[in-house]
């Protein structure tokens, strides 16, 4: 089960609201490579994972992703406070505003609502870990693209922190892959699926 800590993992203090930025950053909440997809992907992959170390990585990275969902929410909240109706119309935020006002609803930057299609749970050790490695890289690229488009240092600072976490998580999933390979048949990694074909055993 989970316990909540009443703090952000990294502080978010944005002086100037900017609904244009909010419209693109929201992809890291409800988009294909966003934090919500990440948390859902890792926490669900745990159940078919046969290796203690990999379950630990999925649990702890998945839990950190929930903290990142909260950080993105905090960024969106601060970027959309005290808006005038004119600012809403002029920035293009009106299309989101009409359905959600300034509530935080998980959509991609282009307005597509969050979808479980963004996550993969294949129930195969190597397929799932490879998915996770790719997911971290795709999330890193999304932060890179956001950082290309955003000038405000108050907004860039937490985004850069989150980008760095994608890089670290990629490395940790590299550990997970190595761990799974250490358990595999050395002549043929893909001779069988350890998540399905062999009985689970705690090491």
């Amino acid at each position: 089960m989970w316990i909540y800590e009443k703090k952000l993992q990294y502080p978010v203090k944005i002086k100037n609201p900017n609904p244009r930025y909010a419209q693109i950053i929201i992809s890291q909440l409800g988009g294909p490579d966003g934090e919500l997809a990440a948390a859902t992907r890792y926490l669900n992959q745990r159940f078919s994972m046969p290796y203690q170390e990999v379950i630990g990585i999925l649990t702890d990275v998945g839990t950190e992703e929930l903290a990142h969902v909260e950080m993105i929410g905090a960024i969106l909240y601060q970027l959309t406070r005290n808006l005038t109706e004119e600012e809403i119309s002029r920035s293009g935020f009106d299309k989101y505003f009409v359905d959600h006002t300034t509530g935080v609803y998980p959509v991609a930057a282009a307005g597509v609502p969050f979808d479980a299609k963004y996550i993969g749970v294949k129930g195969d050790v190597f397929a799932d870990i490879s998915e996770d490695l790719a997911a971290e890289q795709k999330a890193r690229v999304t932060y890179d693209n956001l950082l290309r488009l955003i000038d405000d240092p108050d907004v860039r600072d937490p985004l850069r922190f989150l980008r760095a976490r994608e890089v670290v998580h990629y490395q940790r999933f590299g550990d997970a892959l190595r761990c799974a390979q250490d358990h595999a048949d050395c002549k043929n990694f893909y001779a069988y699926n350890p998540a399905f074909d062999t009985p689970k055993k705690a090491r």
Partner: protein
Amino acid sequence: MNSANEQSRLLRRINALSFALVETNLYLDGHPTNRAALDYYRSTYGEYQKLKEEYESKYAPLTATAGESDTEWKWVREPWPWEIGFPEAGAAAPTKPLYGDD
């Protein structure tokens, strides 16, 4: 009582206390000055902490922060809660009523 039963009994007690804390937490969120609930929370939390420490020192970490030891990271050395082999939290009845006698 063997050690596995002892572990299950302790875990069941911790589970009951942590559930009581969740319930009281939710109630207090809407009634933040309720004296009886505050007292109940404090005494339950004290007992929960004591038993959690006992469980973690005798058996296994319940949170990652209790996973360190001199020789290894115990967090990934014990079964996960959905796995066969995780101690049965429902194996034994609690030794005393959870909500008092009334």
